[in-house]
C-alpha cells in the first residue's frame, strides 16, 4: 500500500476493513460521522454487514449479536453516544465476546460541543458500564498510529475475548495526514468453540451474562480479573522522547501528547532537561515504565484536553515519589504548544530553585 493523504475517521474505517471487520453498526454523531459514512459505502461493496442503527444503544447491541456469532464486529461514536453504549459494554465484557469500539471524543458534559476533547478518559478507563472490569483502551496521536492501533485492537479483542476501545478525539478524526494502510487481511473463521452458529452436530452454545447464584458470579468475576491481570501485566504500551536525562517529564496521551511534543522540543532548545512520555494504552495504563521514570525525574507535568483525568493514573504510578502537576484545556479548546511550553518553563524554574534531588 502506498502513502496517501487520509482523513482520520476514514483511515480508522479503512484500517478496520483491512483488519477483517465483517460487521459495522453505527449511528451518526459529529465528529465521527465520516467513519460511518465510509463504512456505509465500503462494507456492502465487500459483501460485509453495515447497518445504520436507530440509536447507539441498538448499535452496540447489534455489535454484541454479531460478535456472539464469532465475527470481527465494531461500532464507532463520539462521547454522548459512548455514554449510551455503556449498557452494551457491560454485557459484552461479562459475556467475553470480542469487539472494537472507536470513540472520537468531543467536548462534554451533556451535549457539550463538537470540538476535540479528551474528557472520556474516566468513562473509558474507569466506568465503561456497570460491574467489575476494565476495557482495553488504545490512544493514537496521529492518523498513521490510528491505522496501526485499529489492527492491534482487533487482534487484542480476539486474543482476550474482550472489549477494546480505540480512543481518538475530534482532531485526529477530522485532520488529514499522509499515512499508509496495511495489506487487506483475509476473513477467517474464528471462535468455533463458543460462537453461536447453530448447534449442528454439537451441544448448543449459550452466551449469557446472567449468573443468579452469587458464588457463580463471583467465580465469573474472578476469571475476568485473572484475564485482566494478564492484560495488565503484558499489554502496557507507551512511547517517549528525550527522557534519558530528563528532570521533568511531560505526560500526555493522543492529541495532547502530540502538541506537548512541540513544547518539549522548544524547552530542550532553551536548555531545559525535559522529556515526553505518551501512554498508548490508557488501560492498562503504562505504569511500569512511568514508575521507573519516577525514580529518575523531579516532577511530572500532565497535559490533557480535560480538567485532569489521566493525572490520577500518573499519580498512582508516581506513588508519591515526585510532584505531579497539571495543565489542561477543556470544553473543546485545543491547547497551543506555547501555553504548554509556558507551563513547562514555570514548573522547570520552580524545580531549579529548590535543592537537587538525592
Amino acid at each position, binding site marked *: 500500500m502506498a502513502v496517501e493523504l487520509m482523513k482520520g475517521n476514514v483511515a480508522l474505517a479503512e484500517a478496520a476493513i483491512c483488519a477483517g471487520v*465483517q*460487521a459495522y*453498526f453505527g449511528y451518526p454523531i459529529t465528529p465521527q460521522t465520516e467513519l460511518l459514512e465510509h463504512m456505509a459505502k465500503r462494507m456492502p461493496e465487500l459483501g460485509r*454487514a453495515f*447497518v445504520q*442503527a*436507530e*440509536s447507539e*444503544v*441498538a*448499535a452496540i*447491541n*447489534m*455489535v*454484541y*449479536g*454479531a*460478535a*456472539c*456469532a464469532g*465475527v470481527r*464486529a465494531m461500532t464507532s461514536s463520539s462521547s454522548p453516544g459512548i455514554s449510551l453504549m455503556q*449498557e*452494551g459494554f457491560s*454485557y459484552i465484557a461479562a*459475556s467475553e465476546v470480542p469487539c472494537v469500539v472507536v470513540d472520537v471524543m468531543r467536548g462534554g458534559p451533556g451535549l457539550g460541543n463538537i470540538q476535540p476533547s479528551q474528557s472520556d478518559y474516566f468513562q473509558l478507563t474507569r466506568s465503561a458500564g456497570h460491574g467489575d472490569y476494565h476495557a482495553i483502551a488504545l490512544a493514537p496521536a496521529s492518523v498513521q498510529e490510528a491505522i496501526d492501533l485499529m489492527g492491534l485492537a482487533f487482534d487484542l479483542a480476539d486474543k482476550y475475548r474482550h472489549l477494546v476501545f480505540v480512543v481518538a478525539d475530534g482532531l485526529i478524526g477530522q485532520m488529514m495526514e499522509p499515512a499508509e494502510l496495511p495489506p487487506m487481511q483475509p476473513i477467517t473463521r474464528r471462535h468455533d468453540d463458543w460462537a*453461536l*452458529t*447453530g*448447534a*449442528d*452436530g454439537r451441544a*448448543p*452454545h*449459550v*452466551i*449469557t*451474562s*446472567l449468573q443468579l447464584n452469587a458464588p457463580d458470579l463471583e467465580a465469573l468475576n474472578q476469571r475476568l480479573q485473572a484475564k485482566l491481570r494478564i492484560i495488565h501485566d503484558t499489554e502496557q504500551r507507551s512511547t517517549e522522547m528525550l527522557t534519558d536525562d530528563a528532570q521533568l517529564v511531560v505526560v500526555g496521551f493522543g492529541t495532547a501528547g502530540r502538541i506537548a511534543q512541540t513544547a518539549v522540543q522548544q524547552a530542550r532548545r532553551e536548555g531545559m532537561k525535559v522529556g515526553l512520555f505518551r501512554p498508548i494504552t490508557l488501560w492498562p495504563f503504562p505504569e511500569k515504565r512511568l514508575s521507573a521514570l519516577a525514580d529518575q525525574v523531579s516532577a511530572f507535568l500532565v497535559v490533557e484536553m480535560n480538567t485532569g483525568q489521566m493525572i490520577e493514573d500518573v499519580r498512582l504510578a508516581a506513588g508519591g515519589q515526585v510532584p505531579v502537576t497539571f495543565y489542561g484545556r477543556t470544553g473543546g479548546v485545543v491547547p497551543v504548544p506555547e501555553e504548554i511550553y509556558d507551563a513547562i518553563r514555570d514548573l522547570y524554574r520552580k524545580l531549579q530553585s529548590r535543592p537537587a534531588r538525592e
Partner: protein
Amino acid sequence: MTISAVEEKVVYQRPESLSDVPTHYCPGCTHGIAHRLVAEVLDELGVRERTIGIAPVGCSVFAYKYFNVDSAVAAHGRAPAMATGIKRVLPDRVVFTYQGDGDLAAIGLAEIVHAATRGENITTIFINNAIYGMTGGQMAPTTLPGQHTTSSPGGRDIEITGFPVRMAELLAGLTGTAYVARRSLHNVKEINRAKKAIRTAFETQLAGLGFAMVELLSSCPTNWHLSPPEALQWIEDYMVPYYPLGDYKVIEPVQDLMKR
C-alpha cells in the same frame, strides 16, 4: 394374547428442540405452552441445528436453558438488535427473539419497531400477559385499564398512565413487516391456531420474506392472583376484547406460503 403383541405408537413426546430439563415457570403459566409450540415448529421445519434464539430479560430470561438451540440472552429490550447483528452476519441461519411485554413494548420499543421497519429477516415471539412477571407484578405497557398491579394498586388509571399498547396493530402498520398476527393460549383451539401462526412466522423467515411477529396472549396466574383456570378465563373475558385475535399483516408472498 401376549403383551408383546401390543403395538406401541408414540403419540406425544418432547420435541428435540426442547431441552429435557424442568422449567422455573409458575404452575399454570403459559410460557411452557409457547415454548413447546416454538420447539415443535423448529422440529417440523427441520431447522433446529441452524437456529439461534435470543432470550429477553424477564420471566423467560432462562429460555436458553429450555430451547435446545444455540442461544444468547440480550440486555433488557435489545433482543431485536442482537438478532439483527447475528442475522446480518449469518443470513442462512434461523434467528428468533422470544420477548415479554415489558421487554418488547416498553424498554425495547425502539429496537422492535426499527427491526420490524427494516424488515429484518427474523422471527419474534411476543408474550403478552399484561404484567411484569419476573419483578413481581408491576404495571406493563400492556396492562389493561383498571387492572390491579403492584405499581397500579388502585387499578390502572388511564388518566395518569395512558393506555395499553397494541403491538400487533402497531407493527402491522409498518411497511417493513411481512407477517404479524395475534393469537392466544387460553384454550386448545386457540393454541392450535397459535402454532399455525408460529409456523407461518418461521416459514416467512425461511423464505426470506422479512420480519414476522406472533403476539401470544398469555396468563400469569401468580401475579394476577387467580387460579390457572381462572387466569385462562381472564384472558378470554378481558384480554381478547382489548387485544383482538387475528392476522394483522400478511403480505402476498406470505399468503401464498399459507396456502401451501
